[in-house]
Structure formats: C-alpha cells, structure tokens
C-alpha cells in the first residue's frame, strides 16, 4: 500500500510534466497531481492529504521550473481541507465529483494566484481565470470523475474475484 501511495504521489507529480501534455485538449492540460491528492485525502484523511499535497506540489514546482513551494502549499491546503471534510462529503456520485473537482481546481487557482501575486507574478487575473483555471477546472472535473468510476469498478472486480 505504501509503495502504491509513493508511486501515486511521485508519479502524479512527474507524470504531469512529462506525459500531461499528451492529454491536452485545445491547449488545456489536466492537473493530474491535484486529482491524485484529492482522491488520497478522501481515503486517508487530512494528515495524509496534507503530506501528499505537499510532496506532489513540490515535485510539480521542481519539474516545471516555477517557484518552489507555491503548488506545494496550495495542494497541501487542498489535501488538508478535503481530508478534514472527507467524512461529511458524499463523493460517490459523479454529480458531486465533477462540480467538486471543478470548485477545488478554481480554489487552488485562486490560492496560487494570491500566493504568486505576493511574489510579483505579472499575469492578469481575468485572463488567467478565463484561459487557464476555468478550462482546466472543467477538464479536472470530468477526468477525476472518470478516474473514480474506474477505481470503483476495479475494486468491485477485485472483490468478486477474491
């Protein structure tokens, strides 16, 4: 299990920079590590979500050449929040998963923008939201829901065979 988690967190961060561009649709790429962090936080709680978010975000920062620590902090916050709320959320339905991941991506984008603004990031807010954050949020929503459905199906197959 630990190996799986390490591969998921580490793989999520590195795969995002290396393989992520291949998943682009109309120049929009999904934030795979964010989806992985949310799924892990829902299953393992706030401490794990926070740690996984930190590691995945740090690796993403390192792979992209951006400021180290920006995505590490925002993803740690997302992991912690989702891990804390996990028990109270009904996340088994795609009707909850898609808007949930959309909102989380937007929240992460806002947190990232606020943090980067502190360090003199030059891009305008409106354009970032229109061309980067919102399209990516939609993509994350559908990709994340598909991933959850696939995991649920895989688990049910495993239970039937064991």
């Amino acid at each position, binding site marked *: 299990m630990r190996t799986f988690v390490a591969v998921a967190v580490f793989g999520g961060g590195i795969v995002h*920079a290396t393989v992520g561009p291949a998943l682009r649709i109309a120049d929009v790429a999904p934030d795979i590590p964010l989806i992985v962090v949310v799924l892990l936080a829902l299953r393992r709680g706030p401490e794990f979500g926070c740690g996984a978010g930190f590691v995945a975000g740090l690796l993403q920062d390192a792979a*992209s050449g951006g400021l180290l*620590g920006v995505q590490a902090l925002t993803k740690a916050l997302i992991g*912690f929040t989702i891990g804390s709320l996990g028990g109270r959320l009904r996340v088994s339905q795609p009707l909850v998963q898609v808007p949930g991941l959309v909102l989380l991506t937007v929240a992460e984008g806002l947190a990232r923008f606020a943090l980067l603004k502190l360090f003199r990031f030059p891009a305008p807010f409106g354009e*970032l939201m229109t061309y980067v954050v919102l399209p990516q949020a939609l993509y994350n929503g559908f990709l994340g829901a598909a991933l959850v459905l696939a995991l649920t199906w895989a688990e049910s197959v495993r239970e039937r065979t064991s």
Partner: protein
Amino acid sequence: MKIRAIVLLGTVAGVCLLLLTLQMRGHTAIASDALAIVTTPVQSALSRVNRAAVGVWSTYRDWKNVRAENRRLRDEAQQLRIDALRVTETIEENARLRRLLALKEAMPLATLSGEIIAREWGGWVRSLTVNRGRSDQVTRLTAVIAPDGLIGRVVDVRPGASIVQVLTDPASTVGAHVVRTRTQGIVEGEPRGTMRFKYMARDGSGIQVGDLLVSTGSGGLFPRGLPIGRVRAIDDRGSALFHYAQLTPAVDFARIDEVLLIVGEGSQDVAGLFPGGGI
C-alpha cells in the same frame, strides 16, 4: 489527531513560505538541485516511455483502419503500415536533425544541442526541460534556439537538465524589432499561450500583418536577428501611447523535440541564417 494535523499543516505552510522567501532572495540552487537529482532521471525515462506509447497507439489505430477496409489483406497491410510509419518517422527525424546540424555548423557562436525531455504547458508556466545541465556548462539565461528561430532562455540549471522559459510564458519579455520598418518594442508572453508585440504608437504606424519580428540583440542576452514571429493581427488603440500586435511564433513550441543552446558569447547578427524568417 486534529492537533497533529494542524501542526503538520502549519509546518508545511512554514516550509513553503521559507522556500519562497529564500528563492526571492536568490538562494535557489540547493533545494532545486536536490529535487532535480531525483526528478530528472525519472522524467527522461518517462519521456521515452511516453514516445514509445504514442508510437504504439498510432500504429494500432492505423492497423484498425486497414483491417476494416480489407480483412483478407490485414496482416500484410498491418506490416506495411508499421514499416511505412517507421520509415516516415525516421525520414522526418533525419530531416529535423539535418536542419539542426546545418544551423549549428553555420552559427558563429558556440552551441550545444539538446533534447526536450518534458514540457510544462499549464498556462501559469510555459517551459521546456532540456537534457543539458550544469555538467554541460549551461548557465542561467542561456539562449535556446531551433532551426525556425528563438525558443526562449534557460531560467533554471540543474545537474543534468535545464528549464527553458519559452516566449509564450506569461513572464517572458524579449526586445524585438520589425524587420521591414525597424520599429522597436517588446515581445511579451500571454497566459492563453500566445504572444504580443508592444510598441510605441507613433513609430509603429507602418506595421502590417505578416511582418517578421527578430531579436534586437540589445542587452547581450540573445544574438541579433533571431526570428521571433510574424504579425497575425494589430490591436490599434487609437491615441494610446502603446499599440499591440498579436504574433504567430516562429517556432511551434509544442512540437519541438531538439534544440540548440547558445553557450558562446558574442553579439553577431545571425539573421542571415534564417532566410525564410523561420516560418
């Protein structure tokens, strides 16, 4: 549990803010180097796996089409298709490398060839990772070019890799001028993945769609005359001090696989090496 979780969150936030503060004060090398030792080999390996997977997928798709068209000749057609794909891929790669070699030999400055092993295309940062790093004498702000023109500059150097900020990155700015009118200005990246030319209105009245822009060479960062892009549309802002022109990049950053890093110093005009303006 809650106190432990909150302490963990506080520690993580503290570490992140400390990292950010250290970077803003110029102490970036230790942390990024340590991470690069782990991430660079994995990125290289995944890049190879990714290319192989894409190749296998396109081959499979072609095979399906051939099978539907003619079941009796399925096996033969599949083999021919695979062979044709391999040959086409080899020819295209050969042509790309020949162009790169020709440019490398013609350049009056010392250059180093590199291969793209990762791309960050999220919009916040638009960068390429090249498999050349500190061990190859690459330094920060090294100019990176392709046979079609300028790609960008190295913003982070690691032991075995470098991060290249491409011209469409929102934080990228390059001094440029229009070849036909000599109008000076600045080429800026935009979050949507495009770039624009910002110039003084009274000087730029003669700019037309299709005009070629090249680097000015001022500041010594890039050689003079490197193609940057062509004017796609002009945003006339009336009596405003600055006007803007939307540009089509000379280089297709999403498709480039091999690059040259200019490691030598000099201010030569290299415009003659890009006769078609790169586009």
